[in-house]
């Protein structure tokens, strides 16, 4: 009986983890501005926390959204922990594994611009414009007020606009 329960738990978790890992990894790549090794570590950390909660997971309304919130919070916690030793680099530490080469200039410029944002501003950008979350949902996920999200969002957009020349469309390499 015990073996069957353990197997069932593992089975369910693996199904969830394999299903969500791709999306979480893409979010993590944006949060880490293209550091794929760090992104994979972040995803594994997030999913391992989900595993530890798995016994109660059936009671959570939206496990996918829950995992996304855990990912962002784990990212911010790790950033706080390592912020003392973190130094901005001129170049990305690890070239992103971009497999679609349609507009590499845009992507590299965007990742570099994201890297120059403070981690919390970056998280706001990712949640608002990649996850399409509302201001209120973003505020909940980051444990801050809606006003703080608006302010961070506005500041981050101004920086990105300045860094990316006002129009991302112009950065796209002609096909």
């Amino acid at each position, binding site marked *: 009986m015990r073996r069957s329960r353990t197997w069932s738990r593992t089975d369910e978790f693996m199904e969830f983890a394999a299903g969500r890992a791709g999306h979480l990894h893409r979010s993590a790549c944006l949060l880490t501005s293209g550091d794929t090794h760090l992104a994979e570590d972040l995803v594994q950390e997030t*999913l391992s926390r989900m595993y530890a909660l798995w016994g109660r997971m059936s*009671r959570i309304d939206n496990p996918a959204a829950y995992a996304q919130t855990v990912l962002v919070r784990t990212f911010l916690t790790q950033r706080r922990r390592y912020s003392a030793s973190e130094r901005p680099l001129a170049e990305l530490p690890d070239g*992103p594994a971009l*497999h*679609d080469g349609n507009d590499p200039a845009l992507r590299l410029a965007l990742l570099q611009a994201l890297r120059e944002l403070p981690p919390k501003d970056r998280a706001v950008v990712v949640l608002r414009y990649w996850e399409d979350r509302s201001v209120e949902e973003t505020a909940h996920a980051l444990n801050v007020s809606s006003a703080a999200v608006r302010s961070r969002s506005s500041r981050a957009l101004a920086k990105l606009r300045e860094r990316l020349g006002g129009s*991302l469309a112009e950065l796209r390499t002609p096909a």
Partner: protein
Amino acid sequence: MRFEDDLGRALRHTAGAFTTDRRSLAEGSLVRGRRRLARRRASVVAGSALTVALLATAGAQLGGQGGAGKGRDHASKPRLAGDYRHFAVTAEEMENILHNGMNRAGIAVARPKVQGTGSSDQARPATATIDFEDGWGAARVTLSVRRVDPAEQDLKKLITCPPEKGSPYEECTTQPDNRAVKGYTEAGKAGGVKKWAVTMLSPNGYLIEVATHNVPMAKQAESALVSRNPRMNPGKLRSLAMFVDGSFARDGEPNSFGTVVPGAEAESGDILPVLKALLPERLHIHSEGGSGAEGHVVVIDRKTGKRTYVEAMRIAGDKEFWNETLADGTKVGTRRLTGKQPGVVQLRVDALRVNGLWISVSAYNAPSPTSRRSGAQHLITEEELKAVATSRTWLLAR
């Protein structure tokens, strides 16, 4: 096209170009997750050993800062309701309970800083503190939960106001439902540290204290002159205490209703999330549904495929059939009724609280009340159904 739209599109293009081996990520996560659980279990064992050593000297003062019990053992042996020696709550769960309770009580919280300590020891309270901006300045709310046997006579004085003459409180009101609201100013501090506190003895076996101060930190109390009153009034504190009460189950552990990550909680007042939080963990939920005042799930035995329909609803009035009255005055009625299809039995447990809240929980040995029988027995027992119906968490679903 707006810059935000361009940015969203560029983010999607950029993110979409990253690929990974999802299976190996999942497998790596599983290994880490197992290690994490093992560490938690080890910390519980270590915590228990330390507790034995500390018991001789440890005070059981409410509000004390215990060591952080960072984890708990979900796979430990089954515990009986009424075993008041078991207590297991982590620091993170305490933080989430306080934060969710503040949200539920409608307290505007800006720039919150939450800090908690867990406990795996009956004699040591678990605590949480939230420092925040309330619009007029800094404020702090503290929470302390200690596992107790509600029958202990010594606890009565904590929830009963002393005679006015010689009372340390400026105001104190003894309330029904084993609760006291106390307001006092600590003399001798610059400006006076004003504090409102609600102390509550839960029939589930917890002594809960929530308090608000008019200063953010004890250090500031020494120097800063503070004239304003605590912003969180006793009514809101009482609501917060009720949330904490509903967040802990009878077995000495919190339920997912209170400990969900803030922001991921369900709409308040809905029946379904409460029902899901109260079902025994061993049950696998196959499907779910419901409106605000009714919620149902279909649980499944994954080996046999047998299914049981469990529904809960809040009802305004019905034929009364009480056959038991609990210590807190809650009337409980249990019935077995014949279903619409041959062999289908409806197990029904109703609980009517002294405040008029009437919750009815039923289970059918079928995938729906009108379906054909799915197995001879229900996947949930009558006792488990009764525990669901009589849970104090329903008080939060009104």
